[in-house]
């Protein structure tokens, strides 16, 4: 017990010395910590945002249509005839086919893109639960003229807090009037912020799409295991169409965020690498003051291992504190500040700023990955070169340096 307590006291003494040494050079050390912590903060934030978005997308997309049918012409999407719905009705296994006009409108005056959706919500399989997404009002009836439900960003940008009517330009620059019958709530913001939902005829009128044409057919099947089989049958029956299953769309989404996140991560990792190289370069050299200090300590009875322990504690302190502070700041940034720094990168730089709260996913594997990418290289870069202090001869202090 005595040997243990002496050993423990020795380590605490060395830690005290390391901390005092750290504090003596506090400007330099705190600067390193801030930079290192900032790099970890950026990496961790990206990781959390990406995970959060892909998890939400995966959960939400589970409710997307089983199969989406679109029409391609010269490799570009075009409207498809409503009559295709009847051709699909003959395929065994299809439960429902719901036509939809799904497009975007660029509001030149506001510089914003709106997503416009025209469909009969009552015809959708999940339509009965749809009113849950509303903060107020109702969805327009199928034969209602000009009725629409808008997202919160639309309310804001069109100034609909105090009025119900607004207009949008048709392609021939005539105005199409709309009347707000309902607004989407905050809980569905991540899906509906930029959305205007109206009836099929109203959407066709807005886009000047000729009657009898739609942009998508939402196909729902009886047996989910038959999705791929039915998709093949649809492709065979409608050779000019593009048939997208839900799993294909989910992969696309993962690719989108994976691309953006990966691009940003590569930039950050490059910065991290530069930082590690600088740390190695700094740690590799011993200043005359450091050599003198090491020589004095050695003559006074400090072993080389004790001196290496000082450098180890200093490196550990910076690395560990930077990591903890960086990850903590990343969490606060993502959850309580809605990842404000990265929204333009991860979420696009739109005029409409989708207002939703991200709930990150804290996976031990992610935290460990960030730890291995940041703390371990830094420790290797700063502690390994500390062996140089082992070659400072103890008699250098006796010789006067």
């Amino acid at each position, binding site marked *: 017990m005595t040997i243990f307590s002496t050993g423990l006291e020795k380590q605490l003494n060395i830690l005290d010395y390391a901390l005092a040494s750290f504090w003596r050079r506090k400007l330099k050390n705190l600067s390193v910590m801030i930079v290192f912590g900032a790099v970890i903060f950026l990496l961790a934030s990206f990781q959390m945002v990406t995970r959060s978005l892909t998890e939400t997308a995966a959960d939400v997309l589970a409710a997307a249509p089983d199969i989406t049918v679109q029409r391609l012409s010269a490799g570009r999407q075009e409207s498809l005839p409503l009559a295709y719905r009847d051709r699909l009705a003959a395929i065994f296994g299809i439960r429902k086919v719901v036509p939809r006009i799904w497009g975007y409108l660029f509001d030149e005056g506001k510089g914003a893109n709106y997503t416009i959706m025209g469909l009969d919500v009552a015809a959708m399989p999940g339509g009965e639960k749809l009113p849950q997404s509303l903060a107020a009002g109702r969805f327009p009836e199928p034969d209602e003229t000009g009725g629409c439900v808008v997202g919160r960003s639309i309310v804001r940008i069109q100034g609909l807090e105090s009025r119900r009517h607004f207009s949008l330009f048709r392609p021939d620059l005539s105005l199409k009037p709309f009347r707000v019958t309902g607004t989407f709530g905050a809980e569905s913001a991540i899906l509906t912020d930029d959305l205007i939902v109206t009836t099929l005829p109203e959407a066709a009128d807005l886009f000047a799409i000729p009657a009898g044409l739609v942009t998508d057919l939402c196909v729902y099947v009886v047996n989910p295991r038959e999705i791929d089989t039915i998709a093949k049958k649809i492709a065979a029956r409608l050779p000019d169409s593009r048939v997208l299953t839900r799993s294909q769309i989910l992969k696309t989404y993962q690719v989108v965020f994976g691309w953006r996140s990966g691009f940003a991560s590569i930039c950050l990792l490059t910065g991290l690498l530069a930082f590690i190289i600088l740390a190695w370069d700094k740690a590799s050299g011993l200043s005359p003051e450091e050599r003198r200090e090491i020589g004095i300590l050695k003559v006074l009875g400090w072993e080389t291992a004790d001196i290496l322990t000082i450098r180890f504690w200093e490196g550990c302190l910076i690395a560990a504190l930077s990591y903890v502070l960086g990850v903590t700041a990343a969490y606060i940034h993502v959850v309580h500040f809605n990842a404000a720094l990265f929204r333009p990168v991860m979420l696009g730089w739109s005029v409409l700023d989708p207002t939703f709260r991200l709930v990150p996913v804290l996976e031990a594997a992610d935290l460990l990955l960030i730890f291995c990418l940041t703390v371990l290289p830094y420790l290797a870069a700063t502690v390994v070169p500390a062996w140089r202090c082992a070659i400072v001869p*103890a008699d250098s202090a006796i010789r006067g340096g």
Partner: protein
Amino acid sequence: MESGCLNLSTGQPGLIELAGVCKIYNQGRPNEVQALTNIDLTVEAGNMVCLRGASGSGKSTLLSIIGCVFPPTSGRAAIAGKQLVRLPDRFLTLHRRRAIGFIFQQFNILPALTVLDNITLPLLPLGVAPGERKARARALMASLSIGHRERFPANQISGGELQRVAIARALINEPPIILADEPTAHLDSRLSLEFMAIMAELKTAGKTIVIASHDTLVTEHPAVERIIDIRDGRIHVS
């Protein structure tokens, strides 16, 4: 005679015993240097001797061997009862901690540390708790009349006080042997005499003291029992 065993003892083993000690740096390499040749030296416990020699004479090398910093290349060296030859570096360090107190040229105090922290530096790797470290340091500071400077950074005290801090640091481990390398080189006469007065007290208390110096205030001090001249790595008897 050029060298000899300057042993004035009564036959009992000395605290410092060197016999036929040689030190060669970079042995076998083109820049090989023989720093010490056939050094025979015995210093009894409680004696004060002075090593006198010019720069490059081998004085610092001899001091390093006596101080258990490194072992000799050949010969026998026993310091405070421990043979140094073939002793691994770690054990040399452990022995040095317990047996030797160093007072350096220019004192080699760490300027950023406080007086108290400088004095207690040798106690840290021994696992001595903070309370005990402070108690021992304060006792020494009181005896050396520098207790009022405890919290001062070492770069804010006078030369004389620095000297006492260096002495206190050398004594904190209660070593039997004190080594001082040109301790008065940067001190005026008054401080040099003060230093020697403290050394004399330590000698009376039973410490064995070896001072490397060519300052006459040191070499001609009555407390110094022997002067050992070193020239070209050999002891010369004049």
